[in-house]
């Protein structure tokens, strides 16, 4: 289907079903139950899942295929956000021009940075991208926000004000980002028994876009171009002596992944019409690296899983506080209860980074292929068990 082989088609279908049904899947616990805090099916978080999924899918095209590790991709995300907000300020709150411009601007910006950074490889390339991203951060944070020329609005962040031109704004359109009149914030809530499910317009826009760019990523992975990118990672020397110029290949991959990042930034602004310099900070660049490695570098679905995993932890673990812990361990004798809370306390709330760090170490050490490898091992194990049962019934096991 769609020019994909069977395996890729089913992968695409699974992703499509999961994203479309996410409001149900992510809200398995009834409202008001003790477990409800583990629900992730609210619009804000679901939007973040798919937006960072897009960011990581694009990053993986560069890092997973060519092996070039960029530490500056947040710069493209930030540039995308600024471009989108400027479209809101100048044109109108319709998200289409905003998203288009964010992709174009991020593409041009990554062409420039990629052209320079790709003169080096390995650690030097990583450092160059990091330096560029920090320069972009500094530009956005202070240099480009002075009274004479205010492109980024510095610390406050770029936002839309009542006196902005919005040349094409129509009176009957919402005063918030919208898609031809449908506000990104409009949400339909479905109550079933104790459960409540939110269907948010913004989420579905992001979800559809993610499916499209995920499909494009599959096409790239299976194309001759994708094969050349893997050749870059495998042996550049052989590539050059085979008559191939590796530079334009890496640059193309860099720009494509920069455009994915810009798209993610544009969508972020479309969900919430604000752009701040902190989006470009090196921690944000590092996060997408973690997502990709955690999920499974070079795999199709890995980056999406990694993005979901990290965003889930960031939002759910960080909300657990000592009161919640006390209520969990209330069944223990007092001394024990306090002790357990004391032990777990550093890993929750603001300490969620600690938990994430530990998990990241465990994955890198025991599952170098990331969550995808973990899933495959689990699947093989289950299959093996089933086979064992079958064969042991009939004949004696081999060995």
């Amino acid at each position, binding site marked *: 289907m769609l020019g994909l082989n069977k395996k890729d088609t089913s992968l695409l279908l699974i992703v499509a079903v999961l994203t479309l049904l996410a409001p149900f899947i992510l809200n398995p616990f009834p409202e008001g139950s003790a477990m409800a805090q583990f629900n992730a099916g609210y619009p804000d978080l679901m939007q973040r899942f798919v937006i960072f999924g897009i960011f990581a899918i694009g990053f993986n095209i560069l890092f997973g295929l060519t092996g070039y590790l960029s530490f500056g991709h947040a710069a493209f995300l930030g540039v995308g956000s600024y471009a989108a907000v400027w479209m809101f300020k100048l044109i109108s709150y319709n998200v289409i021009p905003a998203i288009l411009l964010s992709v174009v601007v991020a593409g041009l910006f990554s062409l420039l940075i990629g052209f320079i950074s790709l003169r080096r490889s390995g650690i030097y390339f990583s450092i160059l991208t990091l330096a560029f991203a920090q320069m972009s951060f500094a530009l956005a944070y202070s240099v480009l926000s002075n009274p004479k020329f205010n492109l980024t609005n510095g610390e406050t962040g770029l936002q839309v004000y009542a006196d902005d031109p919005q040349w094409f704004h129509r009176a009957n359109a919402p005063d918030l980002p919208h898609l031809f009149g449908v506000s990104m914030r409009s949400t339909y809530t479905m109550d079933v028994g104790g459960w409540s499910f939110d269907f948010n317009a913004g989420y579905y826009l992001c979800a559809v876009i993610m499916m499209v760019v995920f499909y494009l990523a599959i*096409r790239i992975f299976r*194309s*001759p*171009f994708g094969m050349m990118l893997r050749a870059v990672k*495998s042996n550049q020397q052989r*590539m050059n002596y*085979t*008559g191939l*110029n590796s530079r334009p290949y890496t640059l193309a991959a860099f720009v494509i992944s920069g455009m994915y990042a810009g798209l993610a930034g544009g969508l972020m602004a479309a969900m919430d019409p604000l752009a701040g310099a902190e989006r470009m900070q090196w921690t944000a660049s590092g996060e997408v690296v973690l997502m990709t490695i955690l999920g499974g570098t070079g795999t199709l679905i890995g980056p999406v899983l990694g993005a979901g995993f990290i965003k889930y932890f960031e939002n759910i673990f960080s909300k657990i506080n000592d009161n919640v812990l006390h209520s969990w361990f209330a069944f223990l004798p007092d001394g024990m209860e306090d002790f357990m809370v004391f032990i777990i306390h550093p890993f929750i709330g603001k300490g969620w980074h600690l938990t994430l760090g530990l998990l990241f170490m465990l994955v890198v050490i025991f599952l170098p292929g990331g969550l995808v490898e973990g899933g495959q091992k689990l699947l093989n194990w289950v299959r093996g068990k089933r086979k064992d049962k079958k064969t042991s019934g009939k004949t004696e096991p081999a060995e």
Partner: protein
Amino acid sequence: MGILEVKGVNKRFGGLQALGDVNLSVKENSVHAIIGPNGAGKSTLLNCLVGKLIPDTGSVMFDGQSVLGRAPFEINQMGISRVFQTPEIFGELTVMENMMIPIFAKRDGAFRMHAYETVQNEKQIVEAAEEMLEEMNMADKRDMNSASLSRGDKRRLEIGMCLSQQPRLLLLDEPTAGMARADTNNTIDLLKQIRDERDITIAIIEHDMHVVFSLADRITVLAQGTPLVEDSPENIRGNPKVREAYLGESA
């Protein structure tokens, strides 16, 4: 005029004169062997031919055009393919993918952004790659990861990758180094077949005299970066200067 003309090439690494006034002429459709003791500068000479190194002085002409100052990929596109002393293949890719890449490079040039097609749908390329694998006797290893091939098979694959581009000049750097006798004989047969069936010029560096005398039409002996003699295999065999160069090295 040979297809490859090397004139007055010098190359220094710091205080070491790796190549000193090298002149070499390789005739079209011949097999030209370059022999010499370890450290004689044989690999350095090849590096100067494919753009890996630039000689300090001198000229290198291929088919009437200078190769100096061109990038390795441009020199390959001119029609020179090189097999390395240690096999250089795409270890993380399958044998089939390894074979397809040079064929793509031959058809599409140094860069083409074919990001929306599917590799499997490139029927011509798939067929050509499969044919080449067949010719290399590697069809059964088609879907293996190339890193897990034996050393002999890696070398075969690399030779196949170079041949699939139908180069006019094939450069081989010790193609049988580290091979068992049987593998060496297979390689000799393979190279003989290539020499007889294709319109190709071969320059080969080799330590194994059995290989050299089975294949070469001309032999150049290199010692300490300078060509000692260039002659036919029969004359080289009895030449006392050549003996001395080798014996002097091992003494």
